[in-house]
């Protein structure tokens, strides 16, 4: 088992969770042999905000989430918590989390993780560009009384 740092793992789990399920399935059509430790389970997470954006926490409302855990035949354990109700997505994300702890990590990162990350970056930049196009450029008109 390669010793993944929590920081790296945190980042790839986020990428897998936010990935469009169909895209993840296209990049990794077949799951490696595994034993399911936690069957995909649909539930809710209570989303919290902060009073005045920075103050005390409050409960805003829930969101759907699906979680799953698997163990590969080689022993690595993968977990996934993903937004929505797609059980296949959760199982596949857990399998990728486990694969990224194996010797095949570099290959999986190149084939699955990096494409997902770069597509997410592109989508985010596209949205930011649309927003930037609606940014207001103020100009002040010269008025007669300003002498």
């Amino acid at each position: 088992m390669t010793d993944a740092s929590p920081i790296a793992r945190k980042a790839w789990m986020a990428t897998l969770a936010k990935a469009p399920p169909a895209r993840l399935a296209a990049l990794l059509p077949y799951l490696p042999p595994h034993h399911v430790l936690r069957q995909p389970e649909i539930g809710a997470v209570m989303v919290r905000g902060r009073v005045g954006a920075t103050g005390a926490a409050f409960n805003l409302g829930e969101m759907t989430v699906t979680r799953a855990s698997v163990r590969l035949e080689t022993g690595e354990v993968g977990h996934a918590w993903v937004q929505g109700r797609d059980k296949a997505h959760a199982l596949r994300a857990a399998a990728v989390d486990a694969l990224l702890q194996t010797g095949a990590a570099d290959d999986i990162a190149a084939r699955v993780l990096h494409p997902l990350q770069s597509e997410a970056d592109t989508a985010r930049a596209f949205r930011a560009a649309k927003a930037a196009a609606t940014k207001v450029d103020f100009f002040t008109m010269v008025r007669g009384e300003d002498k």
Partner: protein
Amino acid sequence: MITAPADALEGGFSEAPLQSARAFREILEAMARPGTIRRVQGARPPEPLSVAAGVALLVLTDPTTRLHLAGAADCPAVRDWVAFHIGAPLTAAEDADFAVGTWDALQPVTRFRIGQPDYPDRSATLIVEVDRLVNHGPALTGPGIETATWLILPETAAFRANRALFPLGFDTIFTAGDRIAGLPRSTRVEAI
């Protein structure tokens, strides 16, 4: 990397919807008919927890219930198992919604929450691990018991004192192996 040891990841329900519904029904029956002994299955918790205590925890606790692990039950294996399968925050006895351990480890039981007059439900449920559960011992009477029944108990004074607090008080679930019995606060326990 912080990861729970592999065996902590085993031993939950394999068919959670069915198994938890069945087990919930058994626990409900046990509480509704104090003193009756029921059997439950489906959990394989780490030592020293019994199957029945594991089932009770899987069914009754979740991330919104504060759990107190008493005595030998407060060990890394149990903590990791609870973290993965249940996610209940672990807490001191005084703040617990649920507590699990042997009767000795849970002492003094007067420290557990008994609710408030307007919210008697804000009280603790004690899951008490015992060596054996048989219908022999002090007589039990009260709601859910037609005439009287008998149940082996670790003592009687604490349960009589708890009954005197009604409608406040804690509720008790006894577990031994795969056997489970309930002793809600409403049950009158014969003095011995």
